[in-house]
């Protein structure tokens, strides 16, 4: 009977001062925890400042094998050649044209015993892709992607970095160089987001511009 009897229960709230002390203690514990975490970050990031500013689908070319570094350099140079032709002639050169002009890697260098590539240029509205499929299974594939400015939009301000180039008429291009480890398993068409299809965007230097 005693259990079911009506009882008076005193509800004593914690004083605001005591509650504030508890909150401050918790805040200090959180701050200390964050400080410990920041000074001993468990995430696998290199101590290198460049690695800190990369997303999971980005890499610095210096971390790749020497052959890949050479290919990256050649693609950077060939991109400048292609942009020069685009500025002069008004259209992007296709892969056979670059090969005829002797521009590496579109024109293979017989002195180098590197993997042979089948290069093709495709255009999807404003996106121009130069895609290199390896003839040897297991070798990486390569992609040079250029995004032309949308003529219906105001002209973009040119930023001097690895991702922007400028034509002679001042048009700002978004450019990027990508690699994909297993080049044999490439889909027929490259989508608007190469990173969603396993491609890795390469940089020569820190994309955030920290020197």
């Amino acid at each position, binding site marked *: 009977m005693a259990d079911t009897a009506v009882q008076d229960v005193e509800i004593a709230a914690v004083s605001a001062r005591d*509650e504030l002390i508890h909150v401050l203690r918790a805040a200090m514990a959180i701050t200390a925890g964050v400080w410990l975490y920041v000074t001993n970050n468990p995430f696998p990031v290199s101590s290198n400042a460049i690695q800190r500013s990369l997303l999971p689908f980005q890499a610095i070319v210096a971390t790749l094998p020497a052959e890949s570094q050479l290919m990256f350099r050649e693609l950077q140079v060939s991109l400048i050649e292609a942009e020069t032709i685009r500025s002069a002639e008004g259209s992007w050169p296709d892969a056979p044209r670059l090969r005829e002009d002797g521009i590496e890697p579109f024109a293979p260098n017989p002195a180098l015993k590197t993997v042979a590539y089948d290069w093709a240029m495709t255009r999807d509205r404003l996106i121009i892709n130069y895609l290199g499929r390896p003839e040897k299974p297991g070798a990486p594939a390569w992609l040079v992607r250029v995004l032309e400015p949308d003529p219906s939009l105001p002209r973009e301000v040119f930023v001097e970095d690895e991702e922007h180039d400028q034509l002679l008429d001042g048009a700002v291009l978004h450019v990027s160089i990508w690699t994909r480890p297993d080049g044999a398993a490439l889909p027929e068409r490259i989508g608007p987001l190469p990173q969603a299809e396993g491609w890795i965007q390469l940089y020569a230097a820190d994309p955030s511009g920290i020197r």
Partner: protein
Amino acid sequence: MTPLYQWAASLAERGILPSDFQYPFLIRGFLCVLVLAPILGGLSHLVVTRRMAFFSAALGQAALTGVAIGLLLGEPLNAPYGGMFGFCLLTTLGMVYVKRHATLPPDTLIGVFHALTLGLGLCLLVALTRQFNVHQVESVLFGSLLTVTDADLLLLVAVGVIVAILLVREYNKLLLDSLNPPLATVSGADSAFLEYFFAVILTVSIVVSLKVIGALLVEALVVVPAAAARNVAGSTRSYLAWSILVAFLAGAGGLAVSTKLLVPTGGAVVLAVSGIFFITLAAGVYARRRRAGAYEIKN
């Protein structure tokens, strides 16, 4: 995780899974949805019952500031968790304490915190753009499946398990405290503790969801599933079950849409959950009318 990705890719090649599952980022995204749906769906009906929708929105904005603080403290772009957890938890403690002791209405006080954290975040973002390329930062701020790593997934699973255990342990007290705080106190629950406890687990759950859904949209997944569930649920148990189901359908649907149409995952998930809300709203109205019609015929 590589064997799991290879196994899923082989199933995709054989046509057992959709072809998109050949990409590890999509498998990670799907696993994130599987973990996030019960966490956010389970929390969302308590968020709605405790009228904490605006509080959740303010936390999402605070996370933007947390990202900026983390990056300025030297954390990597891909995992500024120290800044996010630290700043959001401190903001939560501040908001709950002031809300409990100030005489102003709670939404006004949360509005003050909301404005304060956002203003601070914007100022810090300007400082941040001197260190980072803004294109690099925006995918972290607005959520992108492509930036989710195995480490993020493991953190999400760990937090999900801890939150689930704590929620199951305190669920009855939390629900009673949400519906009738004096009754909860009389029955032995510490109302103040429960208020801080729920705010903290909500904060932790929001922070781990940010990389998938994005800071600006995360509050949608802690409010809309419960709002949709409320349209069709007939009991507290079905309210919880519907909330989780809606969160899962919205997550999986949004993921599929974002992959096919190449739109941000967060935006696609929010559109999906909003679409489900309006479907359940119409279904709820239809069901009530049918019940009312049956009652009139009976009498």
